[in-house]
């Protein structure tokens, strides 16, 4: 029997955009998306791999600049390090931005965690004329330093070997002591003595670290201290407040500013001892800065942004048109093939109407989704998306939202093709509960990847003359509605002051083709998987709801009698007889659908829904959309193909809708508006409940549906009043 493998726990930590997730993917083989902007990863992610007979459990922590309690990412990273106590922390440091990155390193050293530094992007640093002496840095900091290039994998083997050595080393890691000047050093010593004497929080943090955090007025540690021992906490707080007041009066600053200043001073002293040499002038502006001067210009910037976004739509729709048509034909051919191969009956109906038309309706849009994701990946990986966030901040402020709300909006489909579920989760980066709630309730208004096929279907069917322009228009409408709703929330139920927006922008980088393809494929594959599992299940369930209960023998007999009468009247297989027979078949199929569970529900809703122009069949699709928005297309496909299983009748859904008397341009607009804004899908609702509460989740369902119905009714009734229909 094999001996159990030695298990080593490692954590990856560092600043945003330092390359943590790239290294994580390289080491674990995980294919998790790396966004080139802060705020994409809030929770930590785990992966494992083997090295020299040891099993290594690697955790990717969210990117942070410091270990204070300012943001959720910082709390998640700090809590993981003190609670889970990984055997070694791999601190990824961007060699091209050493000073900023070592600020976090300082705090890891102060926390006394076993650590190794991965000096990443040494190639980028070299291009910028920066040489980093890893050996000197190692000697001065007293921790191993390994130069790597995470993107190519250079140095990663040496990094892991040295990390394993650190993990297996029995050395006791002593926290680093940095001097914070006379005023603070004295107080730190006094607080440390009190903390040490009372064993106050010493099981979690080193006493010096706790003392510093009290001086920094760290909310989380102070709250934890009050729970552990209220009396000691009060004494420590009073002492920290005393020195804080003194510094405010004498120097006009808070202790945390002095602490940060001294940490940067410590870093500068390290760097100046031969750690970093520069070939170029330190004041030199890099290409990235020069691009920023143009791209974020207050006049040129928004124009460039609009042109880029419009270009994205143009690229997506013009390039995907042909492959979408091929897939459409493929599923039409498949329907015909199955139709010829299977005998008439329920099974054939289920396969063609439930599975092929249901899943095919969704999979048919894979090329479009793929091109959209590819375009978004270019914007993300190049760093331009972060600039979009900066430019949109000005607009978001007007509507009572925080600049960081831009990311959840973009992730949810601000540039059509996202998903509201990660969008809702991304709101965790917002500090203000009211701004967060306002963002969380409005992100489902964005055009997610699931709504995209519906938009593409209806725009393609009724506005085929300029699809990209209409798609862009509906995206702008979704933004307007979301922002106006946010303003409404922030002016009524979620009133409150705004919080400041400060964000580090990643440098522009040329995206790599493998990276773009991986990101595009990951998201497209998620879409395909959903179509093959959840949507297939829901399609078949909805097919069953649209098939059962079946018509009674008496009802069937009425149609049989009509067919018999037709036979006796014409006695020949004329064109007229054939058309009349088809009419009877269609009437029977429609009666069967109306008689089914879904039909009964759809018909019961029709007296209300007809104000927005929706017939009972559209109602069935909209009910399906409560489960998942992708289902709308598949249900429409099923509802409009019931009873028409012959291959020659298997025309694309867009054509069937164009030919249907219930549909026209205005109904299409009303349907698009309703689908864009009605209740979020079930998974999003559950996420809202988990992130906020069930009260807000129910509010979101009710508010969105009522609001969407009013808008859709207005869109349908206005042209009627103006006699345009």
């Amino acid at each position: 029997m094999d001996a159990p493998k030695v298990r080593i726990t490692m954590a990856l930590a560092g600043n945003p955009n330092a390359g943590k997730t790239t290294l994580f993917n390289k080491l674990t083989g995980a294919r998790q998306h790396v966004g080139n902007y802060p705020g994409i990863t809030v929770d930590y992610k785990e992966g494992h791999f083997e090295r020299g007979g040891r099993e290594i459990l690697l955790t990717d922590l969210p990117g942070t600049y410091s270990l204070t309690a300012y943001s959720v990412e910082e709390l998640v990273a700090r809590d993981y390090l003190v609670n889970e106590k990984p055997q070694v922390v791999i601190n990824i440091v961007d060699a091209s931005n050493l000073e900023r990155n070592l600020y976090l390193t300082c705090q890891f050293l102060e926390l006394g965690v076993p650590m190794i530094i991965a000096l990443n992007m040494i190639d980028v640093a070299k291009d910028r004329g920066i040489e980093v002496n890893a050996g000197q840095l190692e000697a001065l900091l007293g921790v191993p330093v390994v130069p790597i290039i995470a993107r190519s994998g250079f140095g990663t083997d040496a990094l892991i070997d040295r990390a394993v050595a650190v993990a297996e080393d029995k050395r006791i890691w002593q926290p680093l002591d940095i001097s914070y000047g006379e005023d603070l050093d004295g107080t730190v010593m006094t607080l440390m003595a009190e903390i040490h004497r009372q064993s106050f929080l010493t099981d979690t943090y080193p006493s010096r670290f706790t003392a510093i955090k009290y001086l920094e007025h760290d909310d989380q540690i102070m709250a934890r201290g009050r729970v552990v021992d209220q009396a000691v906490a009060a004494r420590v707080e009073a002492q920290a407040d005393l020195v804080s007041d003194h510094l405010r009066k004498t120097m006009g600053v808070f202790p945390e500013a002095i602490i940060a200043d001294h940490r940067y001073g410590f870093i500068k002293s390290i760097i100046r001892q031969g750690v970093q040499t520069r070939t170029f002038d330190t004041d030199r502006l890099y290409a990235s800065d020069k691009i920023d001067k143009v791209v974020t210009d207050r006049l040129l910037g928004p124009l460039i942004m609009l042109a880029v976004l419009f270009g994205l739509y143009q690229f997506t729709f013009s390039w995907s048109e042909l492959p979408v048509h091929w897939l459409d034909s493929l599923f039409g051919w498949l329907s015909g093939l199955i139709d010829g191969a299977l005998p008439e009956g329920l099974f054939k109906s289920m396969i063609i109407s439930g599975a092929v038309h249901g899943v095919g309706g969704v999979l048919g849009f894979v090329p479009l989704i793929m091109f959209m994701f590819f375009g978004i990946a270019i914007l993300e990986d190049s760093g331009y998306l972060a600039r979009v966030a900066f430019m949109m901040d000005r607009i978001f402020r007007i509507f009572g939202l925080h600049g960081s709300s831009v990311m959840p909006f973009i992730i949810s489909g601000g540039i059509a093709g996202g998903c509201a579920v990660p969008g809702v989760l991304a709101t965790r980066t917002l500090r203000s509960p009211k701004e967060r709630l306002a963002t969380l309730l409005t992100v489902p208004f964005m055009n997610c990847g699931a709504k995209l096929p519906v938009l593409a279907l209806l725009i393609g069917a009724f506005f085929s003359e300029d699809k990209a322009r209409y798609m862009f228009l509906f995206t702008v409408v979704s933004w307007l509605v979301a922002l106006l709703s946010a303003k409404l929330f922030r002016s009524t139920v979620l009133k409150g002051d705004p919080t400041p927006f400060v964000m580090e922008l990643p440098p522009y980088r040329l995206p790599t083709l493998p990276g773009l393809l991986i990101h595009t494929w990951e998201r497209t594959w998620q879409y395909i998987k959903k179509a093959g599992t959840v949507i297939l299940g829901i399609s078949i369930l909805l097919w069953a709801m649209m098939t059962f209960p079946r018509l009674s023998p008496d009802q069937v007999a009425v149609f049989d009698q009509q067919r018999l009468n037709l036979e006796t009247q014409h006695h020949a297989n004329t064109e007229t007889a054939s058309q009349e027979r088809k009419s009877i078949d269609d009437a029977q199929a429609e009666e069967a659908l109306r008689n089914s569970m879904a039909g009964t529900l759809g018909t019961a809703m029709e007296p209300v829904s007809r104000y927005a122009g929706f017939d009972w069949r559209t109602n069935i699709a909209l009910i399906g959309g409560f489960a998942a928005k992708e289902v709308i297309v598949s249900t429409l496909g099923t509802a409009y193909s019931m009873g028409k299983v012959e291959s020659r009748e298997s025309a694309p859904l867009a054509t069937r809708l164009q030919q249907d008397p219930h549909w026209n341009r205005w109904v299409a607009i009303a349907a698009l508006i309703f689908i864009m804004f009605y209740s979020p899908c079930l998974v999003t609702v559950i996420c809202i409940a988990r992130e906020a509460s069930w009260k807000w989740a129910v509010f979101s369902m009710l508010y969105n549906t009522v609001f969407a119905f009013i808008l859709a009714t207005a869109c349908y009734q206005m042209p009627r009043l103006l006699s345009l229909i």
Partner: protein
Amino acid sequence: MRFKQFNHACSCLAGKFRQCMGDRPAGEVAPLSKIGRRGRKRICKITGDRKLCARMAALGFHAGEEVEVLCQEADARCILKIQGGTVSLDKTASRNIFVESLE
């Protein structure tokens, strides 16, 4: 005498123009939101609430630090280079960072 009057009038006009453009002469301390022009500045003071000051300090914003303003909107947000990184600031943060022009 006439030349002096003309010179004075020109100075006043230049001052008014600078004021209108939000442009400050070198050495004058003003909030980042009012500094008006791109270029190198030195941080003199950071005001605002404790959370903002702490955040700015962690990002390397402290008195004496030099920054390069890359993009600036009148009385609004800006993008600047500090400690080797590029940071975007909103109106609140820009109004609380006092700088002097070095150019």
